[in-house]
């Protein structure tokens, strides 16, 4: 059993290398990586025994990149391919799996060895359930989003760098324009406290109530999907289709608690819910709840926080 790791995001590639190295050591097997960028030797330092390079991997496009990964699979003959599940990676993984005619488990949250088999965990049913899955194909393609695993400490190790020679196909999907998205001020995925707005807020200006609290306790501000995607009050949301967060404290304000939102906050240490609807689903999955209107509770909370000992 051996591994091939690829992500167009180098940090994510190193995180996957860390996990692949750990699993490979348990089975005394090998780890290979397809590198992007300069300094392929760094992949060795991060845990790879063999690093493939291929010229022409510049801007991501699924057809040339997928062809490159398939070429690396032919060279390395891994039993498992780890792909970084960025949005691009989630598109790449099934494309590569289809090229190889093999099984793919996309956007997994964990992996372990059970009786010599690679077993992954994935969210299913809208994020309300966790499935344990395994695959009998060789290889099998598995993708993981950022921050599932930690990268290893970079150390001098022995490993080979091998250059693959291949002409990558011209992408048939032409990018005619790239519109950079404004860099979000909030880094929700690494925030230790998040205060979050749901439909209980009537107007964008009212988010000020959250901003005041965020200022006092050093929190980042998040929201539910409708607040961002439908109303456009913020540029990113928390939930299964948005950011999955794991703060020590998550304060859900005027949030109803849909399956998709709850799936994104599951790993929070403490969840607080503030919602005027006593029957709101969010109260059922929180540690502390206040049944009340955000317009009354939040000013009171601001005061209590600023007066705290």
């Amino acid at each position, binding site marked *: 059993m051996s591994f091939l790791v690829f992500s167009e995001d180098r940090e994510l590639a190193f995180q996957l290398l860390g996990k692949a190295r750990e699993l490979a050591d348990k089975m005394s097997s090998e780890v290979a990586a397809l590198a992007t960028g300069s300094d392929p030797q760094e992949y060795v330092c991060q845990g790879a025994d063999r690093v493939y390079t291929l010229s022409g991997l510049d801007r991501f496009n699924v057809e040339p990149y997928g062809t490159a990964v398939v070429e690396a699979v032919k060279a390395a003959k891994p039993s498992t391919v780890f792909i970084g599940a960025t949005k691009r990676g989630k598109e790449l993984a099934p494309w590569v799996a289809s090229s190889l005619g093999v099984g793919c488990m996309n956007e997994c949250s964990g992996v372990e060895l059970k009786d010599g088999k690679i077993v992954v965990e994935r969210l299913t049913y809208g994020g309300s359930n966790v499935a344990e899955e395994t695959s009998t194909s060789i290889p099998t393609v598995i993708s993981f989003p950022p921050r599932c695993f930690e990268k290893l400490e970079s150390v001098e190790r022995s490993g080979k760098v091998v250059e693959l020679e291949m002409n990558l196909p011209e992408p048939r999907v032409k990018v005619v324009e790239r519109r950079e998205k404004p860099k979000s001020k909030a880094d929700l995925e690494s925030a230790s406290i998040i205060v979050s707005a749901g439909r209980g807020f009537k107007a964008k200006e009212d988010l000020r109530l959250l901003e005041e609290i965020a200022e006092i306790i050093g929190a980042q501000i998040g929201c539910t999907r409708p607040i961002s995607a439908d109303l456009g009050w913020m540029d990113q949301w928390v939930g299964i289709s948005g950011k999955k967060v794991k703060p020590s404290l998550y304060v859900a304000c005027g949030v109803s608690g849909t399956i998709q939102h709850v799936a994104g906050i599951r790993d929070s240490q403490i969840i607080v819910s503030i919602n005027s609807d006593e029957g709101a689903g969010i109260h059922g999955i929180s540690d*502390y*709840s206040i049944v009340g209107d955000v317009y009354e509770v939040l000013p009171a909370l601001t005061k209590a926080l600023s007066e705290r000992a």
Partner: protein
Amino acid sequence: MRQIVLLKDIPELTEIKLDSQTRAPIVEGVKRKISEVDKRALEAAIRLKEKVGGEVVALSMGDNKTKTALLEALAMGADAVYIVNEPEFRGVDTNATSKVLEAAVRNVGDYDLIIAGEMTLDSLSSQIGPRLAHLLDLPPITYVKELDVADGKVRAIRDLEDVDEVVEAALPAVVSVVREINEPRIPNLMSIMRAKKKPQTVWGAGDIGLDASEVKSQSYVQIMSVSAPKMERKQIKIEAETVEKAATKLVEALMQEGVL
């Protein structure tokens, strides 16, 4: 222009109960409807049809209940529905599913555009679009939030983490859309009545030239278990005579927890 939209009918997620012992979801008997993102794929196709004309056919792999669930697609504006209903295909993985859909697409005949949802909300696999594009040797265009067709080309805006990518590809192509692309229409009573008269064709494996056991042998991913993780939460309700007192109690509790 002829468009094929891929639809999947899935259990209503909010109505899924858990087995009290195993915490496994009970999906049997739960009402099914077209997956939300798939519905937006259909809406996108209907809007293109309204602009450039042609036909929209819906294609689904399902079972005996799928016909009823897909009436909604016909009511929204699809012209015809094709359903692969083959008992041998129940529970096959995405590798096998994409091969079934490939065969079904070829059986539907000529097309200019295939549209799917970026993921179905039950399995969240995000695989069918890119896999089908590969099998049909067509350009894959994923995460589409704006879609247009002109001069034999599809033009789309892709919603990625760091950029919105404006892309173009020659038709035919396989597009998968995100939820933000549109708000699907709600069919009126007249359209619902008319839907029942539109053609629904059901195919078994043989009808689309497939050997069911061969397809099954290419299904590799096995689901070993499914269960709802227990959210071990304290569920403490903070009550007090006034909101001020409740807020103070909450702050005290959070300080005790060490999270403030």
